[in-house]
């Protein structure tokens, strides 16, 4: 119940070090721009507001409804945050949600946190914002356009995020792209429907109670920084639509790219491998080394336990001195 239902929070160990660091750089860049925007154009009240909204999205991820056969629909919240708060605030709110989930609940790894922030707190809100704004503008701010836009934006944000996860796993050599891309894509086209329906329900509720939050007023999205996000979000969605099928035709992902570009040889000389590609080396030495390591490990654990037990035995008299 505490853990977010979408299989999107990548734990540590599943991404190669190169992919982890590359997406840390991208995430820091995205969040950095959002922070710079926040410093420049948001007023002071946004700090408490964004903290509480982060808690709200976290709690909102616990809401679910039964679909059929034991499955249920859930909310990730990137789309609803982007629609209601604008893209830059949504980036900050989702960054805090994803970070707290990783830091406190181990929902997603720490080294993989850069990738998780990039996927759920940058790509998700950007794509949702781009699509929502497009549809609302096409519908000239009418309420049906807001609902349609909300559904499509939420659905697309889920599917695109899932495809990015699949590509990251493929680039890391964890899962071949011809399996991970179709599998993640298919599962999330279904999961995305749940996200879309909840988002529409939420927009309908807010349309009835606080219409001012929906940004339907003319000129709501005319800020230049938001226009950039609008375009970038659409571009990401389009790029993924083209890139994913391409990637799944070349299941080796980065290896294929590496071969094409001819830097595969360079990669093999690196102090750590780009993509682990090992055969079992001399098994007897290996087994022996593992046994030795196991013995040393047990000795370490035993030693610590003994030291603690010893320290504990002497402590009670000191406990009252606090």
């Amino acid at each position, binding site marked *: 119940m505490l853990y977010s239902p979408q299989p999107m929070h990548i734990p540590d*160990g599943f991404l190669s070090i190169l992919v982890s660091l590359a997406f840390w750089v991208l995430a820091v860049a995205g969040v950095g721009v959002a922070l710079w925007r926040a410093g420049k154009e948001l007023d002071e009240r946004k700090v408490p507001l964004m903290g509480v909204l982060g808690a709200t999205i976290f709690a909102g991820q616990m809401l679910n409804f039964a679909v059929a056969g034991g499955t249920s629909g859930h909310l990730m919240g990137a789309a609803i945050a982007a629609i209601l708060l604008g893209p830059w605030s949504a980036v900050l709110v989702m960054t805090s949600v994803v970070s707290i989930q990783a830091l406190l609940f181990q929902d997603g790894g720490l080294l993989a946190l850069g990738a998780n922030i990039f996927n759920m707190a940058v790509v998700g809100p950007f794509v949702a914002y781009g699509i929502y704004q497009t549809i609302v503008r096409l519908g000239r701010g009418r309420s049906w356009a807001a609902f349609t836009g909300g559904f499509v934006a939420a659905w697309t944000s889920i599917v695109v995020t899932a495809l990015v996860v699949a590509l990251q796993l493929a680039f890391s050599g964890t899962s071949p792209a011809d399996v991970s891309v179709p599998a993640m894509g298919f599962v999330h086209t279904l999961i995305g429907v749940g996200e879309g329906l909840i988002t529409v329900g939420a927009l309908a*509720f807010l349309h009835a109670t606080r219409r001012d939050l929906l940004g339907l007023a003319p000129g709501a999205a005319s800020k230049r920084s938001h226009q950039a996000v609008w375009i970038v979000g659409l571009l990401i969605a389009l790029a993924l639509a083209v890139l994913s099928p391409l990637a799944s035709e070349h299941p080796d992902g980065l290896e294929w790219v590496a071969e094409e570009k001819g830097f595969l040889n360079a990669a093999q000389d690196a102090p750590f491998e780009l993509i682990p590609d090992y055969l079992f080396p001399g098994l007897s030495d290996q087994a022996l080394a593992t046994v030795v390591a196991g013995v040393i490990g047990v000795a370490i654990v035993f030693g610590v336990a003994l030291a603690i037990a010893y320290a504990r035995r002497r402590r009670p008299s000191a406990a009252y001195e606090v």
Partner: protein
Amino acid sequence: MHYHFLDPYRPGDSVLHALDARVKLILSVAFILAVALTPAGAWPIYVLLLALAVALAVASELGATYALKRALIALPFALAALPSLFTLPGAALFSLHIGHWTLTATGPGLERLLSVVLKSWISMQAAILLTATTQFPDLLVAMRAIKVPRLLVAIFGLMWRYLFVLVDEAIRLTRARDARSGSLTGRGGRSAWWRARVTGGMAGNLFLRGYERGERIYAAMAARGYDGEVRAFPLPSLASGQVALLIGGLVSLATLTLLGIWLW
């Protein structure tokens, strides 16, 4: 029902609890980095890193198996690494026949799958021990010390403070829906579309409550002199023993990693 027990912090007075949060945060990240850098198939290094994690769990007095068990929550994600068992080229281990498909597991495939799952499991030990022995406010101080942007740390802190309040709110909404038969399925219940709309209404309601609570909190903070600047105590300096521990930990992790890279 109040969700304070959602807090992963386990009070105690062990060595690990007493350790400075900055040292713990840096060493946890270094540990995870060391696991990530250890090549696939370097089993002895994995065993040693796991032993280190278990030793720390013992030192934290949470019990040797506390983190081992909790780390299993990431296991479902291993499904994502499963295909590599069958797709990597190499010596065949066994074959599965499903209908007219034949899946052949290979040695390198098994090695990669096991490495990924083990790495993920071992990494998680460090994260679990960090949060189980460190109170979140201390972790925020540590984040400030490693230069996470102040605005972000302030948002994290406020989010943490209201997390339980909002989770309680979500639980109340869910309970109200269930009490009104809003989540019934099958006969007596209504369609999945209707249930989705109800849940959407709840999400909108929750958002509105959060939004308005945020505005009230801002008003309360402004009344108490908040001017947009989040002030915090200056960071206390690290005791020399803690610095020694930090350096010693980093050096031994680096040694283990280099050993793994050179030998395998």
